[in-house]
């Protein structure tokens, strides 16, 4: 192996101050003489098994080593009964004790003394701070209506109890709760549109069962570190890995083939892949007939599906029609079961005449014919003009993907975080369906984004006697209602007057920050709960110090693995910090003692038991799982092993969709009225916008802002060094990456702008500007600039971070239905143009 000294020096230079420990001011601990260099370990008081849960989907079991009441080491518990998962946890989780005891820890309640955002606060007692919150909310509630208070808390899937307390309090007091999955741009709108579900991904362990892995805009090696090994296991087992990404990522480094794609053109790529599969006779058309809407006839005159009611008086409007080639005539089919009646040979192509019930006739064509017609526009040669991908590469990829089976598509945030992320998802889902890769281990179309998933029955804890909180998509909080907003959105009549922000650095990590601050400036009271003094906390009127997850109880799960786990307090909360449940109990008590007694006379363990019990019936998600079991370690939920979505649909011909908790099935069933995987959407808005079938549309922001002024696409991927903005201030991680936000730019673009590596550069568009440092690298695509999201503002020369520039545009397709976190506007972080110049 030829690592030479130069390599070593280079590596050393990448680490800030490797050799120099200069500048030390404190000796924090007596030095120990180390005779012979072989002393035994220092002792501890105890080791507590708990679960790491920032907003990262890891949900990793960790051990907290406690000495003298403080955590001195965090290390993976490595106690999953399924050894494939051991150890689970990354360098960020292993350094969390630095967050607990770091200089940014909030230790007391704070009340603002200066201007908002000035950072001037005075310490307050809990009773004063809670009185202030309760009085303020009461005043808003009585004057404007309680619904004008927005309660925000990120990703309830990562903590059902404390985050659930937000929902419970909202239900009890009538406040509106905000969404997060969609607000985060993680809601893959292609999933509800196509499959009728919120999302449905394979357990990460199942990657190892694939023969072929196609990753699109996904970088699990760097941003899903606990699951990265399953990609490597797949390679070990002989799978081929292909990565499609504008950027040469850590995952590209592990791939057999990396295909560079122009940012925001994934749909065109997927359509050309689908076209090639079809064109080369590699498609599984029986799968399309059995499980999808491919054979259902669509009227050429109206663009609506042909119903039984169209054919004969008294016919059902919920029965659809296929063209039977055997009998050369229409056959109606119901929505109670997938598949086709025996003996029916359903056409997927052609034009047919049917006689209508009211007299006259109509031309009809199978929905798949319309899909095929669209695909015909996307030959590899045609797609190349959009994607920049060599047509021959598409052909090779199509052959390998269709024949090396089972094959999985892993779509990541890089592909989903676009205004038209739904189209990219729909086109990729089409590839998976065309190859029959749905509902089988090692296959699938999985979108890995967000720890959104509610896997247990949270109803008894998240509601007030079954009455759920009103939930409004947070994008409407940020920018107000849109003209196309769905009427079911319970947007407050008086608009927003108050905010209770928890588990979020919302004022840095929301899109289109300048617009958000306009909303904030109209609020009478901003309360922020956190354990770190973020810029969000700094903008609050009242700051309440939260206990970290090493200091309180919770119950947690994730989409990435099927284990239910506890968070158990390892140490007492630092300073006066307290759990969110405790805060709500105290706030509600001040507002209405009777309701506090009724709904908040519970502690965390009561709440956990309520949830376990509610899902504990036969076949329930928590059947047979007790608190005692969870105190001992992780417990696998009652799901298949490996956990693969749609098994019931594929094996038993049960109609789509399976239920997405916590919504009722009736609410999500209307997403796919045919009960099938839908590649043809007949609803008016899809037809008005020419999006009835999977298609490609250019990035949105390029049409909003002047492309001539802003020729670069601004990408803001997740960083491996942070979970969004958490760990931004972690001293060990800063030592590794250096703490200077880089703006990655291709040498061609840098040269054209006179930019050299390390230059201070301004990144700007009509919405905002920041100043950071250029890093010139071939890793990124020409025509793009990359600024990782999640840096705290303190690291920039100017500006708050990439969200000074990102957009809050709402795609009206996302407003066709409204089910919170399931069909609602998903943010397009990466759909953003900019220019870069030397500062």
């Amino acid at each position, binding site marked *: 192996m030829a690592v030479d000294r130069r390599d070593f020096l280079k590596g050393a230079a990448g680490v800030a101050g490797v050799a120099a*420990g200069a500048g030390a001011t404190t000796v924090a601990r*007596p030095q120990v003489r180390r005779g012979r260099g*072989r002393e035994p370990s220092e002792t501890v008081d105890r080791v507590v098994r708990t679960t790491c849960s920032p907003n990262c989907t890891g949900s990793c079991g960790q051990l907290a080593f406690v000495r003298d009441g403080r955590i001195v080491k965090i290390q993976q518990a490595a106690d999953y009964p399924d050894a494939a998962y051991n150890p689970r946890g*990354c360098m960020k989780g292993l350094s969390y004790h630095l967050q607990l005891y770091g200089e940014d820890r909030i230790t007391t309640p704070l009340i603002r003394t200066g201007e908002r955002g000035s950072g001037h606060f005075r310490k307050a007692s809990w009773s004063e701070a809670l009185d202030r919150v309760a009085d303020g909310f009461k005043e808003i509630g009585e004057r404007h209506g309680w619904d004008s208070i927005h309660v925000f808390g990120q990703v309830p899937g990562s903590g059902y109890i404390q985050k659930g307390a937000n929902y419970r309090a909202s239900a009890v007091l009538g406040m509106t709760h905000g969404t997060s999955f969609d607000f985060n741009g993680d809601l893959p709108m292609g999933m509800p549109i196509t499959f009728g579900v919120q999302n449905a991904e394979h357990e990460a362990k199942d990657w190892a069962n694939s023969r072929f892995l196609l990753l699109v805009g996904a970088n699990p090696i*760097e941003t899903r570190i606990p699951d990265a090994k399953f990609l490597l296991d797949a390679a070990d087992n002989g799978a081929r890995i292909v990565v499609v990404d504008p950027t040469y990522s850590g995952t590209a480094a*592990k791939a057999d083939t990396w295909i560079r794609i122009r940012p925001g053109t994934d749909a065109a790529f997927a359509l050309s892949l689908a076209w090639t599969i079809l064109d080369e006779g590699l498609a599984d058309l029986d799968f399309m007939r059995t499980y999808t809407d491919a054979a259902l006839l669509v009227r050429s005159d109206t663009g609506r599906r042909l119903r039984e009611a169209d054919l004969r008086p008294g016919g059902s409007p919920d029965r659809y029609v296929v063209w039977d080639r055997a009998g050369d005539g229409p056959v109606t089919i119901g929505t109670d079961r997938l598949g086709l009646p025996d003996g029916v040979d359903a056409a997927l192509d052609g034009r047919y005449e049917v006689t209508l019930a009211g007299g006259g006739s109509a031309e009809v064509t199978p929905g798949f014919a319309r899909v095929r017609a669209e695909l015909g526009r996307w030959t590899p040669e045609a797609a190349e003009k959009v994607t920049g991908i060599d047509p021959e590469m598409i052909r090779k990829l199509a052959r390998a993907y269709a024949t090396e089976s089972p094959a999985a598509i892993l779509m990541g945030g890089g592909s989903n975080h676009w205004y038209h992320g739904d189209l990219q998802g729909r086109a990729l889902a089409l590839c998976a369906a065309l190859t029959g890769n749905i509902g089988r281990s090692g296959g699938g179309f999985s979108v890995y984004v967000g720890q959104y998933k509610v896997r247990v029955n949270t109803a008894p804890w998240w509601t007030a006697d079954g009455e759920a909180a009103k939930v409004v998509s947070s994008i409407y909080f940020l920018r107000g209602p849109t003209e196309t907003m769905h009427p079911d959105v319970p947007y407050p009549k008086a608009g927003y007057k108050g905010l209770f922000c928890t588990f979020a650095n919302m004022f840095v990590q929301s899109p289109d920050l300048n617009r958000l601050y306009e909303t904030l400036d109209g609020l009478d009271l901003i309360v922020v709960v956190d354990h770190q003094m973020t810029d969000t906390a700094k903008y609050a009127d009242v700051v309440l110090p939260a206990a970290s997850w090493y200091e309180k109880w919770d119950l947690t799960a994730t989409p990435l693995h099927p284990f239910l786990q506890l968070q158990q307090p390892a140490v007492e909360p630092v300073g006066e910090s307290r*759990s969110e449940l405790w805060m709500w109990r105290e706030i509600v008590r001040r507002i209405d003692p009777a309701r506090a007694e009724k709904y908040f006379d519970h502690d965390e363990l009561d709440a956990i038991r309520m949830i376990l019990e509610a899902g504990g019936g036969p076949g329930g998600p928590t059947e047979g799982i007790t608190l005692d079991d969870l105190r001992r370690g992780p417990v696998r939920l009652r799901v298949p092993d490996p956990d693969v979505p749609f098994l019931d649909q594929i094996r038993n011909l049960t109609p789509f969709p399976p239920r997405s908790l916590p919504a009722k099935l009736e609410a999500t069933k209307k997403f796919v009225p045919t009960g099938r995987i839908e590649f043809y959407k007949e609803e008016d808005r899809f037809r008005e916008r020419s999006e009835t079938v999977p298609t490609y549309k250019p990035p949105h922001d390029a049409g909003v802002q002047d492309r001539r002024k802003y020729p670069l696409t601004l990408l803001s991927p997740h960083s491996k060094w942070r979970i969004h903005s958490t760990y931004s201030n972690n001293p060990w991680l800063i030592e590794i990456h250096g703490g200077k936000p880089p703006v990655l730019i291709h040498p061609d673009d840098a040269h054209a702008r006179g930019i050299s590596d390390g230059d201070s550069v301004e990144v700007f568009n009509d919405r905002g500007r920041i100043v950071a440092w250029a890093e010139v*690298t071939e890793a990124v695509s020409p025509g793009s600039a990359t600024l990782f999201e999640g840096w705290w503002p303190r690291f920039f020369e100017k500006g708050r971070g990439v969200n000074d520039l990102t957009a809050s545009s709402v795609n009206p397709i996302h407003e066709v239905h409204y089910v919170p976190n399931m069909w609602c506007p998903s943010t397009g972080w990466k759909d953003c143009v900019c220019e870069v110049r030397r500062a």
Partner: protein
Amino acid sequence: MPDTEVRTDVVTGVPTDRRESRGAKRSPVDALPPASRRYGEIGDRSTKPRWGMAVDIERCVGCWSCAVICKSENDVPLGMWWNRILTRGDDLDRPGEGEHGHLEMEWVPLACQHCDDAPCEKVCPTGATYIDKERLVLVNQDDCIGCRYCMAACPYGVRVFNWGKPKYPVDGGTGMVGARPVGTVEKCTMCVHRIAEDQVPSCVWSCPANARVFGDLDDPDGRLVNLLRSRGATRLLEDKGTRPKVWYLQPRRRRPL
């Protein structure tokens, strides 16, 4: 069956048995939950083990978990790393142009190689650096005079020096071993304090990609020796003749479309 009652503090919710140190000072290994303890056990070894390690370049995802847990376990001060991850390509996490004009990148974790023929040991004027009975290269900080000959001699650049008073990100430092005195050289000990309790080094435990395998190089039937035999295993700077006990497993052959 009802759950065991958990007594918690009414305000903080913390179990009352955790409110303060109970004074029962235990070894961190004895305090582990049973499943975790089993996970970390070294297992089989020969009667006279010669400890070594394999690092799989294919499986390394460049996450620095091994480096961070090393820092935590060993209370390594700010500005110093016993273990770090080099990027072969360009700067941290960036690719460089490879043989065929394609971009390429690999991560190479680097800590003390625990050489059987260790240049650092040879140049140490006081014998502070020594090779112990299980063939680990260790430093006796009592005898280290801070001359740093060993740092100059080490071809891997893995030793660090305490120039001043150590600085920690949190009061009291971290981890399971005491801090080293100012003016001495320190480096990876292969977590010798953990080996003594039959537990693998922390970097091995904490690699989320299972890229590290620890074991006895003199146990011909052991997992480590079998792994080295079955995979292309090399050592860093073989030509220096240092005979490291850390082996690197080479990446798999790619199958491009």
